[in-house]
């Protein structure tokens, strides 16, 4: 995973609450076995009409929005299915951070795993940011090290799990870190009750 320190760039406002992962990346794109290449399908059903033609006005079809780095959305972003493809699609399109008043638990966890920065700010601050984001050239800075978001006169601090922050800043692989606890895992395994199920008998 690449380290995440500062995300700076333009924004895209998506003023809707409860945006579910079925909207972010519809199921027909989940049969791929790769981790990349989902960006062109981001928000597919909102981005394309029934015949597959681009929907005018949606940000994915707006040249002025190309290259944006921060998505600003409503409450409970990423609810529903656990598909990490949703995070991959957002990253693949070019976003490096999502700002919202709240995130669904699994989506937030998946973002941490893949190095997409989910930033929770109070609803009023998100609304302010969303208004600023109407200007496709407005620049926002999300600074993970200082835990602040800056956009023009707006400056807001955000909370993030310190363990996660540290891992994102260093770009560390979680499996490698866990392997350092090998002795503890083995000790735990040695005392598990014998009745617990196994799929194959040894």
């Amino acid at each position, binding site marked *: 995973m690449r380290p995440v320190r500062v995300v700076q760039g333009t924004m895209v406002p998506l003023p809707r609450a409860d945006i579910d992962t079925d909207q972010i990346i519809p199921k027909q794109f989940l049969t791929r076995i790769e981790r990349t290449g989902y960006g062109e399908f981001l928000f597919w059903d909102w981005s394309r009409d029934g015949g597959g033609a681009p929907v005018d006005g949606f940000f994915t079809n707006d040249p002025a929005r190309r290259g944006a780095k921060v998505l600003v959305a409503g409450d409970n972003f990423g609810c529903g299915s656990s598909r990490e493809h949703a995070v991959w699609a957002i990253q693949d399109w070019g976003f490096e951070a999502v700002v919202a008043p709240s995130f669904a*638990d699994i989506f937030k966890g998946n973002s941490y795993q893949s190095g997409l920065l989910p930033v929770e700010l109070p609803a009023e601050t998100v609304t302010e940011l969303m208004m600023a984001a109407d200007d496709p050239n407005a620049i926002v800075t999300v600074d993970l090290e200082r835990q602040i978001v800056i956009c023009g006169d707006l400056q807001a601090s955000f909370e993030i799990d310190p363990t996660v922050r540290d891992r994102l800043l260093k770009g560390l692989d979680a499996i490698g870190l866990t392997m350092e606890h090998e002795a*503890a*895992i083995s000790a735990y*395994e040695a005392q598990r009750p014998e009745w617990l*199920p196994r799929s194959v008998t040894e």
Partner: protein
Amino acid sequence: MPGRTLFEKIWNRHVVTGDDPALLFVDLHLVHEVTSPQAFSGLDFNGRKVRRPELTVATIDHAIPTVDRHVMIRDPQSRKQVETLRQNCARHGITLFDLDDPRQGIVHVVGPENGFTQPGMVIVCGDSHTSTHGAFGALAFGIGTTEVEHVLATQTIWQRRPKTMAVEVDGELPLGVAAKDMILGILATIGVRGGTGHVIEYRGEAVRGLSMEERMTVCNMSIEGGARAGMIAPDDTTFAYLEGRAHAPKGAAWERALDDWRSITTDPDATFDEVTRVSAPSLIPHVSWGTNPGQTVAVSDVVPSPDHFDDPLERDSAARALEYMDLRPGTPITDIPIDHVFVGSCTNGRISDLREAARVVEGRKVRDGVSAVIVPGSMQVKAQAEKEGLDRIFRDAGFSWRDAGCSSCLAMNPDVIPAGERCASTSNRNYEGRQGRGARTHLVSPAMAAAAAINGHFVDVRDWR
């Protein structure tokens, strides 16, 4: 020492190291074709092995056809995805319930029916409906693909300690009101974000009175309220279901397991971070009208107006949902015509669900113009239903009788509902496009879906003769 909840007891006994976050040991890792390929390729790329293949079970469910599947999977990408799972399981020594295996089925149906799911366990799967297994008094939750890779490699997972929420369902569930109506009623109360950051324990008289399959229906949809997991304390109903199943403990081990399982229930003096009460006697059959599972009303009600909502975001969401669903406020729910009926999914694809539907259907015909499909949750469910003659009842009525899989619940396979058409569905999500682009989903219980198939519109099954 203050009393502890079921959740706290399971959490505490699974901590390998750390406090918050804690590294938890995973007793059972369920795997399917859609969220695992990138996890296996990550392992391979780093030269890592699966730490405990015998604590891992794989099945094929999400994207497979429900007809002629023994011939071949037509979609080349799905075929490749399934083939990839086969190779990954073979290479890493993981048991796979392949398409020709009588145990194949939806991951959250096959775990319990084969006795893998037991009280007190930590269970994970790259699927949000993993909360289903909480019905046994297990801590079970959905994870993403990177975490799937982590569990494959280490058999552990890092977790922040969630908060606890008790949902107390007091009183008795009335006749004709299903477990599905109970969870839809709970979701209407707590909303689609009410459970965020929490593990729910469903409690109370009405919950105790549920069968294991009904408990699975309730726990299954915990994620629809945003909860990390849902669980129900193990009791004699749980033990009776488990006894004798293929992977359940036997003999002396069964007795030791029982003693242990009886000790993990919530202590009388334990407290929860939040408590919500729902009255079971006031529950009625529910039908969703909108595009999230919190947007439901009683079948005797009408489609609500956006003005009915105080919160401006809720109002916008309702207006948008009504437009997508092509519904007018004030329309009686029983006036809504239906084009499709889908009975199946990890929510309502078990044998008792099919029995409920068959009871309604027996001796009747599916309304002209309605396409009605039954997709058993597993091939074992299918075999049992055929043994009981349920397939005959369904076929005679004009239902299509399929092989097991997730099917129209998420329509990754060919069972897609066409744009603009309306489906009464026993599944768990009514999001825009969930069952197909432009498809309109109404979430209901199996009996309500069956009755809608016969009438061509919703009816109150409590009035069914």
